[in-house]
């Protein structure tokens, strides 16, 4: 390995002299023994409950960041020491190796394993046939979660898309402040689902009559209209929509930004021509803008549907989904697997989610193949 800039590397490195070669070998041995020991020590240190928290976090960050660089550097050094004919055959696998190993352990193996576990009992010991799936499609709470998730994947993308599209179209006409306005809508994308859930809990918060005044906007307005305060989050089935509003608030920005860039790429001449022919603004929107960006709308919708299908945090943070009838599929998965320790039920619910995305997966692979063919 040379440290100089690319231009200064000569094709033939002079062979190192005897002493230097011995020193290099010694260095390599020291690195090979020392590095694992150092990593081991760093790992143990991050587990030490008595150590200073700042030091632990510092060591942890150094371990994670430098560790991954060291991994590639050491592997490349080892490849350099292989016989000549081997080096360039092995090197690509060193480059893709870590990624492939992690993908295999953390995604490919789990997919197979989860499918198997979905046919086993709660601890994953004995086969139970289709019992877990029978539970998934008969348990009242599970059925509610399927119904609710079906609503989530329709309502959230539809609203986010509609608001995002209209906002992008209107903001496109502003002479000034377009980027500021778009930033405001995009801002909620930055915060966590947990943070957003707490934010909206404040809006929906409720105190019964005689337990202090209501500090939530919804009830303040409601009482201002002369009504009694309402525990909004327990009002079935409307509470589901109140939770969906949170995700609409968060995802509209995404739809708006992507659609906005698609709208801007429509050739100006087409729109002008339509206007000169006497088309109204609505007709331009309906017959030119929307058809032109239809492929983008499809992509955005697909991703928002997948996101809505996996929604978990919002429902989980709002609390007691079973009492409120706000269960969703991803939340059921965690509840059964993690809180009630039933791996079989949890796995079966996960497989339901997985099966739902398989069409998207096939479409992605097909599109990729088509792109590669014309590359």
């Amino acid at each position: 390995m040379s440290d100089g800039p690319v231009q200064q590397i000569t094709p033939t490195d002079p062979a190192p002299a005897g002493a230097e070669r011995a020193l290099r070998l010694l260095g390599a041995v020291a690195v090979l023994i020392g590095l694992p020991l150092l990593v081991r020590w760093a790992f143990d240190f991050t587990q030490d409950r008595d150590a200073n928290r700042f030091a632990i976090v510092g060591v942890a960050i150094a371990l994670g960041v430098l560790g991954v660089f060291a991994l590639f550097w050491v592997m490349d050094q080892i490849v350099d020491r292989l016989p000549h004919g081997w080096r360039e055959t092995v090197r690509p696998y060193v480059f893709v190796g870590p990624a492939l190993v992690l993908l295999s352990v953390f995604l490919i193996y789990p997919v197979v394993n989860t499918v198997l576990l979905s046919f086993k009992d709660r601890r994953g010991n004995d086969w139970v046939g289709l019992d877990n799936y029978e539970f998934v499609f008969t348990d009242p709470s599970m059925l509610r979660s399927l119904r609710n998730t079906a609503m989530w994947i329709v309502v959230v993308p539809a609203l986010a898309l509609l608001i995002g599209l209209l906002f992008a179209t209107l903001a496109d006409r502003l002479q000034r402040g377009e980027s500021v306005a778009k930033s405001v809508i995009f801002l909620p994308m930055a915060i966590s689902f947990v943070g957003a859930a707490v934010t909206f809990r404040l809006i929906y918060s409720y105190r019964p009559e005689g337990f202090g005044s209501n500090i939530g906007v919804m009830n303040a307005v409601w009482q201002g209209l002369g009504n009694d305060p309402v525990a909004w989050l327990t009002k079935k089935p409307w509470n589901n929509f109140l939770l969906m509003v949170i995700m609409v608030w968060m995802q509209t920005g995404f739809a708006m930004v992507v659609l906005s860039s698609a709208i801007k790429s429509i050739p100006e001449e087409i729109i002008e021509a339509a206007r000169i022919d006497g088309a109204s603004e609505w007709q331009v929107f309906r017959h030119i803008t929307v058809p032109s960006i239809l492929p983008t709308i499809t992509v955005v919708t697909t991703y928002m549907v997948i996101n809505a299908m996996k929604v978990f945090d919002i429902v989980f943070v709002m609390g007691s989904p079973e009492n409120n009838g706000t269960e969703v599929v991803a939340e059921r998965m965690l509840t059964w697997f993690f809180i009630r320790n039933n791996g079989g039920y949890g796995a079966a619910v996960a497989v339901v989610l997985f099966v739902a995305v398989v069409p998207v997966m096939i479409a992605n692979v097909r599109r990729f193949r088509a792109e590669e063919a014309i590359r």
Partner: protein
Amino acid sequence: MSVGERKKAGWFVRITILVVCLIWLFPALGVLVTSFRPADDANTTGWWSTLTNPWDVAQWTLANYRSVLDSGGFSNALLNSLAVAIPATVMPITMAAFAAYAFSWMEFRGRQVMFVVVVALMVVPLQMALIPILRLYNGGAELFGVTVFPDLDLNGTFLGIWLAHTGFGLPLATYLLRNYIGSLPSSIIESAKIDGADHFTIFTRLIVPLSVPALAAFTIFQFLWVWNDLLVAYVFLGGTRDNQVVTIALQALSGSRGQDWHLLTAAAFVTMALPLFVFFSLQRYFVRGLTAGAVKG
């Protein structure tokens, strides 16, 4: 109206946009205002009541933040979130960048098949991975009597959650970076090879500097994804006070002290502060990263 001029916004359009923006800001404003109000005020009157005389200093306080950060354990949680998020961002991006380079510019058997697998894995729901990985962490795995994954007791460790986030982030990172690195002009790489540079040198000295926009966009996306994540942290890191991250701490506070709005809002804002800072300072990369990254499984 002359040709080539965009249709101008009238009053109706401007007012509509203003109203939508105000509606969008309203929820976050409530959190921000409440977090600076004394406990008694915050829990007895609506936060909007401060808007009538915002310059009255007596109604503002920093006590909520002090109490959340110290006794609430959020300063510790902030440190933990950094300890989780920084390596869990660097690791997948480094691995993905090396892999993307190999997929783009190196010849090897199985290249096409492996990459198709990466594309397919992009939309696999996280939920599919949780149970098997937790079992791996707690007991290892054997195949035909041979230990293929040792019982490292990784549950509750930083290393365990880094590896999980890395595994989940890799398909998208590899896909996006390959699109970018693969579209760099081949003449640059060819001439570096003629100059005698090996692949490692080409990668570190040529490809990485040229890929900064793509790397920056994905770095921001992955960092925020990990920072804002509740599910992976909940399953693999757990809720002990020592190693809980900000999202877990906020979720726990929302459960245990759900009516103490002065604390809840301050805590919520503590968890949002860093993402919002990233948003305002790196907005261009941020938008690019999030829109590119919305595909994640």
